[in-house]
């Protein structure tokens, strides 16, 4: 690049940064107005006076771009260890992995490497431990309560099993890992084929049962190969539910979602709105959709190349939320036909969303 092109490029970059500064100023003002508006909305729906101070939980997420290269491999981005003092050490992780390998009967497989990994969608960090024979163990970087095991078994397609018998095997395996399933409910059983008679991998999902509701983010899930009773994968998630109280009404939640939806010009007519209450994990889908609808839509429809994918990095928080599903009057095969907002039941903030109709729900 000669000096002429460089000069023009420098001018372009300067203009871009000035424009960004201007947009950030305007956005900051809009955000302040939006927060005031939503707070007014929340308090207008309250049936009793209160002096409670409601702390906001949604933080402006970091935008992540260029996470992947063209070939799908990760770019070498430095991992921001925001809470480095709480990270498990490599040694702790390796010892944990060795213990787990022994419990799975794979103690003779040596550890090959240990690496820290981040994810573009949230602030969660985890260690990945690779062992011989394509076995790997993952563990949350700050605690050993959330972990996973994976064994890429081959030549297993001839094995067959029975749902009830395998359930007993799975429960025993879980017990061997000192996990008490007393407060867990077996919520679903799937197979790798649509027909159980030809299935050779069975998947059992246990979720924490709180009586009136279930938290699927506190989960124990096992994939097992029948006859040989080999574990294909084993996952323990301990995303604790914050048990936040309900301070806004269903109607408030619906209005918040509908107000937000006005920001984007979908061009579609709303056919129906459904509201349920449930446990939801924070994510960036709604934020992405509301702040960058065009790119969100293109990305959801698979029109964006992998190196241009945009992510917004949120925290990993599980809250009681209203799931407000907006259904548009367009053919249902269209990915845009449905969107569900997660409205925090305490603060009224939009803390996530997805492109599905929300069918489960908890007793209010």
């Amino acid at each position, binding site marked *: 690049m000669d*000096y002429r092109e*460089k000069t023009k490029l*420098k001018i*372009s970059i300067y203009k871009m940064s000035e*424009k960004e500064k201007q947009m950030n100023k305007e956005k900051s003002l809009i955000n302040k107005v939006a927060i005031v508006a939503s707070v007014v909305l929340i308090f207008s729906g309250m049936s009793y006076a209160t002096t409670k101070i409601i702390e906001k939980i949604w933080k402006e997420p970091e935008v992540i771009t260029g996470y992947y290269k063209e070939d799908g491999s990760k770019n070498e981005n430095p991992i921001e260890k925001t809470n480095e003092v709480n990270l498990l050490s490599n040694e702790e992780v390796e010892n944990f992995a060795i213990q787990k390998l022994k419990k799975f009967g794979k103690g003779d497989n040596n550890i090959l490497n240990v690496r820290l990994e981040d994810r573009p969608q949230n602030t969660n960090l985890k260690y990945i431990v690779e062992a011989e024979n394509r076995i790997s163990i993952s563990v949350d970087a700050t605690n050993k309560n959330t972990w996973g095991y994976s064994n890429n078994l081959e030549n297993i397609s001839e094995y067959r099993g029975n749902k009830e018998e395998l359930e007993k095997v799975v429960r025993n395996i879980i017990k061997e890992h000192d996990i008490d399933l007393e407060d867990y409910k077996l919520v679903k059983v799937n197979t790798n084929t649509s027909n159980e008679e030809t299935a050779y991998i069975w998947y059992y999902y246990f979720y924490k049962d709180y009586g009136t509701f279930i938290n699927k983010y506190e989960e124990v899930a096992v994939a097992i190969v029948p006859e040989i009773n080999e574990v294909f994968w084993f996952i323990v998630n301990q995303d604790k539910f914050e048990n936040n109280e309900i301070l806004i009404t269903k109607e408030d939640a619906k209005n918040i979602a509908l107000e937000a939806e006005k920001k984007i010009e979908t061009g579609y007519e709303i056919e129906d709105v459904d509201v349920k209450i449930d446990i939801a994990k924070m994510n960036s889908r709604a934020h992405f959709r509301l702040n960058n609808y065009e790119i969100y839509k293109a990305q959801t429809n698979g029109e964006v190349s992998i190196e241009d994918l945009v992510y917004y990095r949120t925290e990993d928080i599980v809250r009681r939320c209203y799931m407000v599903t907006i259904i548009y009057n367009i053919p249902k095969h269209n990915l845009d036909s449905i969107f569900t907002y997660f409205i925090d039941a305490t603060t009224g903030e939009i803390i996530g969303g997805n492109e599905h109709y929300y069918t489960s729900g908890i007793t209010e």
Partner: protein
Amino acid sequence: METKKHSIQEYQKDGELDIDRLMDDLSQYIKTIINNMTNNNISYEDKEEILSDVFFVIWKNKDKIDSTVEAYASGITKILVKEKLRKRKILENIEDYENLVSEKNSLNLEDDIHECECVSKCIKNLKEIDILILNYFYYHSKTTKEIAIMLNVSEINVRCRLFRLRNKIRKEISDKGGV
């Protein structure tokens, strides 16, 4: 032969600085200053870098220049050359460094020099298509639709790249403590 003197207003065209004409008129003059000061002690790439920085600073400060363009360009060039040499530890004389500090202060160039460094770092590792898109959008004020047609890519592709570049450059500038 004496160089003809111009005011910055002579290079204004429709409210914008005619940077191409400015570069046509002043490049040789600035190159001469660089060559005289450096005695060929710096690389061709460094000279090109200084040249682009000089024109960038002139463009950035176009509304503040009250001397002739040549005088201003000459002052900027000397400071940028000395700054480059200082970083390469090729100072001939300790007074050069002292003069450098006072000259930077008198022309209020601390921020500009810092900005040049930040912007230069952003340019490194940019793909050719990204450079084209940035220049077409921010320098030539083309729409994403026009850029898509010119580059024979989809419009969403252009928008995604711009989004990614904005994010990347914003991060680079803030990480380096830029403005």
